[in-house]
């Protein structure tokens, strides 16, 4: 099924049929994989880590697809799994690197500087440094709104936070990032 013809109702119906489930899931992967990849990549920065997390996300979705009732949108459900996988990964990284939550951005930034799959100039690097300085959940809010222009209502379902709190969080995130970008000027 081509991406532009993707119909969530039809896909959910086919996911419930064991004979058509795998094909329907292929459509889901085809439609959401790239979007999810970039969301994950912006959180963890490294391509290999993002790829692993993406694989885990779809593996968990596949294992639990029979329990998906359709109460929420499929995208919300997938984003929620991806977000939780990111949080788990970042917590694990902090523990491995033995860094505090306040200082967790330093190893990631150093890794980004030497990353062959990072093609940004100094300003882009500074933006990433600014975003890394945000707490992890606020970073997710910033990425979802800034890069994907996600609706606050959808974000609320994914992150389990009220719309008002998300709006405030994004507002302060933009302020922090802006201050960071201009502090040496």
């Amino acid at each position, binding site marked *: 099924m081509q991406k532009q013809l993707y119909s969530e109702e039809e896909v959910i119906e086919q996911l419930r049929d*064991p004979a058509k489930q795998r094909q329907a899931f292929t459509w889901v992967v*085809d439609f959401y994989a790239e979007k999810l990849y970039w969301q994950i990549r912006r959180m963890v*920065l490294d391509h290999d880590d993002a790829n692993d997390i993406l694989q885990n996300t779809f593996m968990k979705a596949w294992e639990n697809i029979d329990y998906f009732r359709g109460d929420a949108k499929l995208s919300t459900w997938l984003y929620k799994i991806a977000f939780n996988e990111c949080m788990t990964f970042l917590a694990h990284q902090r523990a491995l690197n033995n860094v505090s939550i306040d200082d967790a951005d330093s190893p990631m930034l150093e890794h980004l500087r030497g990353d062959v*799959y990072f093609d940004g100039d100094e300003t882009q690097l500074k*933006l990433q440094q600014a975003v890394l300085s945000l707490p992890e959940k606020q970073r997710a809010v910033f990425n979802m709104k800034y890069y994907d222009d996600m609706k606050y209502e959808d974000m609320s379902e994914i992150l389990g936070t009220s719309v008002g709190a998300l709006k405030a969080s994004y507002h302060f995130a933009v302020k922090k990032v*802006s201050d960071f970008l201009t502090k040496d000027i």
Partner: protein
Amino acid sequence: MNSRDQEILNQLEELKKKNPFKVPDGYLENLTDNIMNCLPEKVPVQEPKVTLYDKISPWLYLAAAFIGIVLLLKGVASLDISSKSGSNKADGIRSEVIQSGKSSDEEYLEYLEDRYTSYAMAEVRTNYE
């Protein structure tokens, strides 16, 4: 909003347009296949056949348990009645012995002999009549 803030927002908008993150060649084109190839095949779970016995057996067990409880209670009740009537007789005899002031076994036997004699005399009288 002052001009400096607007300038920063404009800068952020410009930065958003260029994606500094790269991927290996062909990664995104093969993404779906790579993900699907890692997903295991699901084996359809065969639902077990439910027989008539499976449906009624819980009720059969319940009925058997109920009958068992009823029989047990009846048995306990009948034992209780017979032990009460026996103990009443023994209590009556012992109280008579105690009231007579005699408490030894010999006195108890003497008492039984007297009682038996009165029953025997009553029987003899009946036979002659």
